[in-house]
């Protein structure tokens, strides 16, 4: 039914090469394995789903050994394909428990715990968050007090707010936990440390030789894990949003509704400008985030290499970038998934669409691994620091180097008021516009902060009173980084056809962002009314340019139907027939007459 889908288009094949679909091996291993076939979870109860997940995880570990998959990233992809992108009971065991033992345990401790954990004889979780405490780890209340007389640590959750709360796999699966607790020894608190605690079996506490405290080699290592996970979330944002776009765009090519021209048959809903305006900006965002995700992954690996050589100089920037981009992309992707779902009308609300599942699985990334507003404020702190450095004459490098230009002027506010020559069809000109917007908002936030300080507030109060402005500045900075990375990607492309298509997408991304935030550009004097009118108009023209390639552009993401798990997003477009077949499997349809009829309705109706 999707006319241009009979075979992969040339465009699709070319795009796929460019999108770095580097995990296809793991995909094939998982999807083609008869033992790893997936049943439709929509019809299972919560405890049945848990049962299926544990079963698959146990099987998965065996398969990882059989296939000798050892690279952590390949393990992650394989795991993701086995569970079709859904969270699973061993997430924290594989993602946090094992790595923490590898990174923070002594060789002796590794001997003792690693292999049993690798063989699932030990399943561990990572118990950090407490009922009353989250992102602010200094606030954690669990204590581990060393008792030299027995050479043991005594662990306590002393208050209701200190109960460990949320760790995945803890409720039913794990028998061990890495517990983050405030270490007390010789009457002093040494801050947060990690302890391995058996939780579902009688066991002894972990003894250490004596009561003297030894500092871990570098706090930066723990930092590294956080940066890694946040970088991964940027990739997750791209993945979740691109899956949602695939479903919504394919369905919009199959769904017909109303009439455009009186008397004509109902058109595909993808031909409505309003539908294009909902979906195409999200499609280009999915592409943009894909490139940003790849960039973050590469940067992380590069900087990890440096860190292994003892060079931590780039860590602060990467940390700020990963925090801000984690927040920026997860916010945009969450909202985007819901827009895709609603663009499918009522059917998007059915779990057969796959979209509710993508949303509820993805949206917690706005609140886990660092709540997004807190993340934005961390980035803001880095921006503010950089701005202050530039002001004092230091030369900035990296993504914040644009602040140098700002500070080289005597009166920074004046920079933007000189009308800029902007060509809205020239991507490098638009990158510059985004850069100016970010600079302007950083400058404004810094100015407001100084003003608050001038009102005799202390630093913390002044920071708090400026935080709305600071979050905005961080957002603008991240937006600029995304546009810049997308534009930079274009210069790597030699194939002209691909270059054309991706240039259109990049232009759309940049222009749509301006049209949605026109106030920032007008306020700063970067663009004028005429520019803005042209931007609005150009966005609509680009909708029509993208329309013919829309289905090929989502096909290029190359999600197999088994992964999308969506009746609306099927590759073959045969939506209605399969919706009907799917619905027949509803548990409520197991009997012709549901028992509630006899219990509650029949007594009323027998009066007839």
């Amino acid at each position: 039914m999707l006319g241009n889908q009979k075979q992969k288009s040339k465009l699709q094949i070319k795009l796929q090469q460019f999108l770095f679909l580097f995990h296809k091996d793991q995909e094939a291993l998982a999807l083609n394995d008869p033992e790893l076939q997936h049943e439709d979870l929509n019809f299972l109860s919560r405890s049945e789903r848990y049962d299926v997940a544990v079963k698959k995880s146990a099987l998965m570990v065996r398969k990882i050994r059989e296939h000798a998959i050892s690279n952590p990233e390949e393990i992650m992809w394989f795991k993701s394909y086995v569970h079709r992108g859904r969270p699973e009971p061993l997430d924290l065991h594989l993602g946090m428990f094992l790595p923490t033992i590898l990174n923070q345990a002594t060789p002796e401790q590794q001997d003792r715990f690693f292999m049993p954990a690798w063989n699932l004889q030990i399943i561990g979780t990572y118990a950090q968050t407490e009922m009353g405490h989250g992102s602010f780890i200094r606030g954690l209340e669990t204590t581990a007090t060393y008792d030299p007389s027995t050479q043991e640590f005594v662990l306590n959750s002393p208050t209701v707010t200190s109960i460990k709360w949320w760790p995945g796999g803890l409720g039913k699966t794990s028998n061990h936990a890495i517990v983050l607790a405030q270490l007390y020894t010789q009457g002093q608190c040494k801050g947060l440390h990690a302890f391995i605690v058996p939780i579902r079996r009688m066991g002894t506490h972990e003894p250490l030789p004596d009561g003297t405290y030894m500092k871990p080699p570098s706090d930066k290592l723990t930092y590294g894990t956080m940066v890694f996970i946040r970088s991964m979330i940027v990739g997750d944002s791209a993945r979740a949003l691109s899956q949602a776009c695939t479903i919504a765009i394919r369905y919009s090519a199959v769904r017909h509704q109303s009439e455009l021209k009186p008397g004509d048959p109902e058109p595909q809903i993808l031909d409505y400008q309003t539908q294009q305006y909902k979906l195409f900006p999200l499609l280009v965002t999915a592409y943009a985030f894909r490139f940003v995700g790849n960039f973050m992954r590469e940067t992380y690996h590069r900087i990890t290499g440096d860190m292994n050589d003892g060079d931590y100089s780039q860590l602060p920037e990467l940390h700020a970038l990963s925090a801000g981009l984690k927040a920026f992309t997860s916010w945009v992707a969450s909202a985007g998934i819901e827009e895709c779902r609603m663009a499918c009308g009522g059917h998007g609300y059915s779990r057969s669409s796959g979209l509710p599942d993508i949303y509820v699985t993805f949206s917690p990334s706005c609140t886990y691994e660092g709540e997004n507003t807190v993340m934005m404020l961390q980035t803001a702190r880095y921006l503010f620091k950089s701005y202050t450095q530039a002001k004092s004459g230091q030369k900035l490098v990296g993504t914040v180097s644009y602040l140098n230009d700002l500070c080289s002027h005597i009166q920074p506010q004046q920079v933007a008021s000189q009308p800029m020559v902007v060509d809205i069809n020239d991507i490098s000109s638009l990158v510059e516009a985004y850069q100016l917007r970010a600079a302007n908002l950083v400058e404004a936030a810094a100015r407001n902060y100084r003003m608050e300080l001038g009102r005799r507030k202390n630093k913390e109060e002044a920071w708090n009173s400026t935080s709305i402005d600071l979050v905005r500045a961080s957002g603008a900075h991240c937006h600029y980084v995304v546009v810049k990375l997308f534009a930079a990607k274009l210069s790597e492309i030699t194939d002209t056809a691909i270059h054309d298509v991706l240039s259109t997408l990049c232009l759309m991304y940049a222009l749509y962002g301006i049209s949605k935030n026109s106030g920032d550009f007008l306020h700063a004097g970067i663009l004028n009314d005429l520019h803005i009118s042209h931007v609005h108009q150009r966005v609509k023209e680009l909708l029509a340019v993208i329309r013919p390639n829309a289905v090929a552009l989502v096909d290029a993401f190359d999600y197999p139907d088994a992964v999308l798990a969506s009746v609306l997003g099927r590759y073959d477009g045969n939506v209605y027939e399969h919706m009907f077949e799917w619905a027949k499997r509803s548990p409520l349809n197991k009997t012709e007459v549901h028992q509630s009829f006899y219990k509650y309705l029949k007594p009323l109706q027998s009066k007839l």
Partner: protein
Amino acid sequence: MPGTGHCRACSWRGMAAVGAAAKGPYKVQSAINPDIASERTAPGFPLEKLVNLLDGGAERTRIRRAVEHVVNGDTVFSRENEYFLTPTEQYELAVKRAVHLWQKMKELGWMDDGPELQFAYRIMGGNLAFGVHNGVFIPTITELGTDAQIAKWVPLAKDYQIIGTYAQTELGHGTYLRGLETTASFDPSNQDFILNTPKPSSIKWWPGDLGRSANHAVVLAQLYTQEKCHGMHAFIVQIRSLLDHSALPGVKIGDIGPKMAFEHVDNGYLILQNVRIPKENMLNRHSEVTSDGRYIKKSFDKINYIAMVLTRVKVIASEMVIPLSKACVIALRYSVVRRQSELKPGEMEAKILDYQTQQQKLLPQLATTFAFHFMSSSLETFCNQVKVQIKSKGDASSLPELHALSAGLKALISDACSAGVEVCRRACGGHGYSKLSGLPSLYTWVVASCTYEGENTVLQLQTARFLIKCLNKIDCGEPLPQSVSYLYEPVTSHCSAKEKSDFLKPFIYIESYKHRAHRLIKDAGIKLQSLLQSGVEQHVAWNSTSVQLARAAVAHCHYIVVKNFVETLEKLKFEPEIQQVVKMLCDLYALTGILDTTGDFLYDGYLTGKQLDLMTTSQQRLLSLVRKKAISIADALDYPDKQLNSAIGNYDGYVYQRLFEWVQKAPTNAKVNPAYEKYLKPRFRLAQSKL
């Protein structure tokens, strides 16, 4: 403590009793968490009066509390286990509750159209079966049926002797009525109609109460007689046996499977194959088919839409504003109990509501709740006026305005309420993702309203179509309906505000919203006109302008909401203390709306950058003022704990204790873990010897 304090005191005690059972350090220490008690010491306004204002008078507050007393005291209505139920159990409970509520009504003498049911629904939310039966099936018969038809069907339906659904949407067709494929063909030889859903895409899909409960349906179908199609008409079709509830011959029915939420509702599918129904089952108030098959139209076609408009207006209050208001109460209370990080070094961790960013998330949502509450009451009043005009004088002249207004406002309000509930949920951090917070189910409930009763973009474009017609009327010098008469007024080209206090003057911000709406509507009109003049076909021109048209419709509705808020404010002049607090919320709503879309107001220089900076300062100052009263204002929404059903939003502020105690009772914690026995035990045994 003012009135509500007393009332709420009875409701939270029910759960605090559970608190007392906890042992050791995890026990509740005093009646009210001091962190939330300190928020209530000086609300600065008579709380009970604000409660009355929201209820529509002190007498209604009294009735509401009496209803809540009944509901809270009844174990059938207890919601405590709701988050742990399977979909099938949820459906069953919803049926049980609906029947039980009906028995209570009879017992207590509550009227169908009285305030009691409305209040019962307000607190129970979407947890009753037969919403479509009561909310659409019966009203449709009342609106579209003749007196004889009403007399025959409605009493049976009201007694639950028959349960009906409203079968309009099809698998392949939604909002666009003319596209529906189900047919009803008149057979003069038998004096009956033959109904058919001829293709997979014409299977009736989604109707609530259909999958398992209903034995009748109002089916919307294309009427064919004398080989001519006369468009959509409504027919009463019996679909299940009244004896054993099995599907009747030619009828196939089932549930449509799991959804994002609403698992207690049996949304269903319906296939009709040559199902015959008697001639008198066509709802005949506005048209009929004579025995020889002639089609007669008795009254104005558009009248069919009144039922749809009525439903739409009702769901704005019950399905959109209520979830947002509940989410605000939960998130605000949690935000004064949750402490996180340090605001001042060395001091204890700060209440998260003291962070400016948290205020920026939550307080505008609280203001929005009030804006929409007042808007939906005004719209309901207008709707009732139009209904009376039509019924008593046959005067449908206000219908287009009502239709346009209800469509655009439904879209605006459902979008904003859904986004707002999700903001509240995320503002509660990780705990907002726990179902026990109550917030995830409020979101999945409210967000459904963006796509049902008319998909929002389609509705915005309907409003836009009306606005464009109004522009054409201006050209012809014809008068305009009241809500759009501002299009006749001259526009001011610059905002007159000079200092930040000017932005707290309602006429300043009303004027700004008016200016924007005016400009966007006119610009869209000009664009459309210029395309037409350049020879573009009408439908192409409309489609190419539709993004702009939708935007204009939103701006129009936004203006209407702000204006209505200010008008409500003016009516409060004899209650200055209440007026003062409501005005703060009105100012906050209006200014936040401008700051969220600054581009619209800076464009064409209506606001200058300088003015925008002043307004920003003004809005941030408002945040800190509303902050001080936030908990009292939330208390004035007066939801009993039992029906808020949130571990983190209770009146007494004991969040962590309640979370802990509630999960102790969770079914998942009550039994052995079969997955452990089956998959994990053998492996764990191996580790025994090594550790």
